[in-house]
């Protein structure tokens, strides 16, 4: 998600130690915007993707159930 942002020059993560749940996340921008912005934008974009997926999935399930009903009758 963050990699898809053209302002981001570098984005990566590593897990410091497997027994701790901590992730080192690094974002480097091309110099135009503060690095927190792609992070924020990435999170909001991911939220939007999830919202859209949820509604599409539920619509699809409803449609499938309705189709099944008509087939039964």
């Amino acid at each position, binding site marked *: 998600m963050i990699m898809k942002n*053209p302002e981001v020059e570098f984005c990566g993560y590593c897990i410091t130690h497997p027994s701790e749940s901590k992730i080192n996340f690094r974002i480097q921008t091309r110099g135009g915007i503060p690095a927190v912005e792609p992070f924020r934008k990435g999170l909001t974009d991911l939220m939007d993707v999830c*919202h*859209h*997926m*949820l509604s599409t999935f539920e619509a699809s399930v409803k449609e499938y159930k309705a189709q099944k009903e008509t087939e039964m009758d």
Partner: protein
Amino acid sequence: RHVGKMAERGSLEEMRSRVVLGEFGVRHVHTTDFPGSYPGYTDAWDPVTFRQGFHVDVTHMDEGLLEFDLVGIDAAIANAFRRILLAEVPTMAVEKVFVYNNTSIVQDEILAHRLGLIPIQADPRLFEYRSQGDEEGTEIDTLQFQLKIKCSRNPRAAKESSDPNELYINHKVYSRHMTWVPLGNQADLFPDACFRPVHDDILIAQLRPGQEIDVLMHCVKGIGKDHAKFSPVATASYRLLPDITLVQPIEGEAAEKLKKCFSPGVIEIQDIKGKKVARVANARLDTFSREIFRHEELKNMVRLARVRNHYIFSVESTGILPPDVLVSEAIRVLMGKCQRFLDELDSVPTD
């Protein structure tokens, strides 16, 4: 030179959208469509293009199994859902077992372990997580079950019978012997709900006359990350949509051989002007055994690939929640995580 450019374009599209299975390795595995990777392509995130390219198709659904296609998302997000389904969708399961009497041959801890693994039919969304350090448990986070059973000799059995079903009463302890004991105001909150194990016929232990089991169990809400007993799916997996193309037309005997190299239904033989010609009928059914690479004359005539952003998900539920509810819950868990970080970002002052 023009032909060269066309071929380049074709292979560029292939590199961007397909994972190609070669004879000795798999090529173009990773997603490469990021801004700046390809001249002439702008791959920046665009919600409109995403919405246009994304769709969900449900292919099969019943109470236990859901199969659906997710088209147009990245591998990272599809994998995130698979992992969340396995490890982060909460369920209720037996956590603490208070053993009042256990004279059976099954040790206390083994019995407790087995009881923990039994799936409990209770909607986890109606309950809260137990707070840290709380030993007793309140009615909002705990479900109590009792298992009290005693085995005795059957006085009406025949003299020479050696069948344990006839000789003993209650010698097999099943999950249907677990009874719900309402705590506090649970009897009023859930008058119609009956909380019980999903399956009635799970064999917990076997007893002989004189042995008894008397335990009280507390179920709490947990996630699969903590202990696998809390995982709501039997398993959740996905595969990429296969894409088989015949590079050259294949006829006659070779066509028959080709058909045998793939799963049944993938390759269809048509009769055109007396000759048998092979055609790819339904690539989706193939399981990619790569049998084609064992035949010298056929291996260069077919291109085996997978479509990189088309995921065929298969979610099988243990019975606690229907599989479509599980997928919705998984999406909500991911949204919850995003929201948590957004809130933290907003509350921490950035200098």
